[in-house]
């Protein structure tokens, strides 16, 4: 009994919060697909991406959603975007054209005549990027959905993931 009491006496008093740890940046990656559900997604947003995550996987965009990444190479990179044209917005906008940019260089322009889930990928010319430097990636929609009530937020499309993927990257 004595021993058991001593055992109970071992328990400590409640603790205050400890010193908060610093953040250590990861080394630059060759490529990164930024999923909208990633915990660290928001620090990569530059503009026109909603802060609210929908259905745990996607976010509404505005006219020109833009993110920044920090690739450590400019070789064999693929612009990659996973998105959807929503049926509800399509009813108002009709067919839309999306322009894809890397560091404000127009990579391509594609017209979408029906609402659906889409994926676009295209190699990025190496001379548009500097290894180890920030790069901005954007996708601009020509027509946004305008809410009927005044003051509402205009909506572009549904963004699931956007980023750079290295071609022939070895799977670890």
């Amino acid at each position, binding site marked *: 009994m004595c021993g058991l009491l001593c055992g109970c006496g071992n328990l400590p008093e409640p603790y*205050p*919060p400890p010193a908060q740890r610093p953040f250590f940046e990861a080394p630059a990656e060759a490529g990164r697909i930024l999923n909208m559900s990633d915990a660290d997604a928001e620090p990569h947003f530059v503009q026109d991406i909603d802060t609210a995550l929908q259905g745990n996987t996607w976010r509404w965009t505005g006219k020109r959603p833009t993110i920044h990444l920090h690739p450590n190479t400019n070789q064999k990179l693929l612009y990659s975007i996973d998105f959807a044209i929503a049926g509800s917005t399509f009813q108002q906008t009709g067919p839309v054209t999306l322009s894809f940019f890397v560091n404000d260089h127009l990579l391509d322009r594609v017209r979408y005549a029906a609402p659906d889930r889409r994926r676009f990928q295209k190699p990025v010319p190496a001379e548009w990027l500097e290894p180890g430097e920030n790069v901005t990636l954007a996708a601009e929609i020509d027509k946004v959905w305008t809410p009927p009530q005044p003051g509402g937020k205009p909506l572009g499309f549904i963004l699931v993931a956007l980023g750079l993927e290295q071609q022939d990257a070895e799977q670890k």
Partner: protein
Amino acid sequence: MKALAALAAAAFTVMACYGLGALLAARLGARLRRDEKFPLAFVLGAAVLHLAIFAVMALQIAYKPVLIAMLSGCVAAALATGDWRLPVAEDAERDRPLPGAIRYLFGIIFGIVAAAFTVLYLFNAWAPEISPDGSSYHLGLVSRYLRAHGFERVTTNMLLTFSEGVEMLYVPAFAIGRHSAAALVHFAFLIALALAVLAYGKRIGKPQAGAAAALLVYLSPIVGIDGTAAYTDVATAAIMFSVFYWIQLWDENRDSRLLIAAGLLAGYCYAAKYTAFVMLVYAVGFVAWRTRKWRPAVLLVGWSLTMAVPWIAKDWIYVRNPVAPFANQWFPNPYLYVLIEKLWTARMRTYGLTNLWTLPLEVTIRGEATQGLLGPVFLAAPLALLALWSREGRKLLIPCALVLITYFGNVGTRFLIPCLPFLSLAMLIALEGIAPALALLIVFHAVTSWPTVLMRYTHAWSLSGIPYKAALRIIPEEEYLGAHPEYQWARMVERNVPPGKLVFTLSGLPDAYTTREVLISYWGGLNNDVGDALNMGWIKAWQPARLSSFILPDSKYRRLRVVQTGTATIPDEQWNIHEMRLYHGGSELPRRPEWRLQASPNPWGVQRAFDNSEATRWRSWETLRPGMWIAIDLGRDEAVDRVQLELSGDEWDAKMRLETTDAQGRWVALDVPTEERTVRYSGSLRRAATYEAHLRGVDYFLIKDDDFGASDYAEWSGDWGWTRLEHAHGASLYKVNPQQLSPPGVNP
């Protein structure tokens, strides 16, 4: 010179034990026969001397002159009183010598076998010590205590929380003659054990069976390699058999003074190895049964406590657990985690064997899984059942059975050594008088236990030859030891790590050959925390993987508690929380100093869920089960609308509910919706892990090439923030670059 010093130091220690034991035996009125005086006095003296050395260590006066004076005093006192002398040989009444020719032949065979193995053992014990446990923790602790001139509070090596009764005798031997002196002291226990078995055979009128049983024990391969290294198993067996012997001496004349010796030795059993304390149960039971009185039993227990209590107190003071490293569930402490104990003891119960019915073959012939073999002759162990038909046999089988019960807590072959004296005598007393059978058995045992024969049928841990050149230091010690990579690792640490710095390893090294403190990843709470951070640095499954949120109605709360409701499907699944965050209106509540954090179990680790590091986590360190909890007292009512937990990828069964307190302060469940999402951390977990190690004083890492994660540490050493100082003999030594940890990077 080193060879002589080792031999002299061991001899000096053995003489002191014998002298002290002889003094005490005489004061207790023990009438020991000539053949039993050395083994019984030596072991009894060892018990008392160990306590004196414990006192020296506790007083922090373990200097070489003090130790030498202590040994000298024991020898001088025994010489001065005349107790040193062996009694005159007498023909035991019950000795029934064999006819002349047979006795001569019997003596020749047994003599040759015993001499050959003694030469084998002596040179192995005398050679520089590099046995796995001997050169790591048994002598590692001796070396450490001697540097500190006494006990040190060590909370980072659970092996150092075991009682160290035999190691106390290694202290003076090591101080004078270094490592191999300690191994030679252990060898002295082996000789004492064999002589005690021999003497007991004579005492019960079975001299040939006694001689053969002594050789069964002495020649056993596991006894040979263990008893010639700085281990403690053979010494423990000698102490346990001595308890039995003194109890039998008492039973002959019922002189209660002899119970003092038996009690001291039973207590010394605890000091040598916890499980050996079963001999107190035997002694108390035997005495109570024979006398039908409680006073002799109380006397036994009382004297045994004088030997055991110091070790209980040491653990109680140092790690808050009197029986550490066990029973951490009952004596919770931050130094030894419950789950580690549980997994470790589970492993000890099987050694990876899926079928324990293979144990008889494993411990007698194979020996690879259980790390050593007794020898094929012990397949004949069922012969011991014949002893049931004799009174002497039953006396032996009772302690044998008791000791055997404890074996199943650790099925390593060496944990059977304490059984062997009883078992061997029980096996052979029925063959007393059948000298050819005994001789054949011994010759068979000798042949199958000799190193060159052993290596034909097993790769188990055993002696491999007679290293006489190393023993005599014809081959210099450095050269002999240098052929062992583990020794080179210790020297690498010694060369590169400044004094006072901690070194972290995943699988240990010979601590006795470095003066730096080595943290093995699994032997302590701090070690487990550092190891866990390192693993999180590179193992995706252990990293933050899931955000689990409770969405609260916008209201104010003073206390919040998350309670586990899930049950693990595998024993090593824990509840892990990297971070617990509170939000209101989309913003995280700043963690104010007034907050108070608690958790159960592992309350000591709760801050790791509130340190803003993804490379740390509060872990239950117990198998995930319902009822575990983590709680925050905010110190005042605060508006909270979200409680968010970051969980690991390796807790598949975690399910939780949120609670708060009502007006009476009782915890009540909050029926609120939850959200789940996956997470990915964008920072460097490797660097964050290094930061945590650095905070805990660990700046050096010895990683062997085949260690878990070795290739990640080598390939990503820059990301870890480490510099490789040396790579040799299959291991790398890394150093943390403090400038890469401070100033910190950008906080997103």
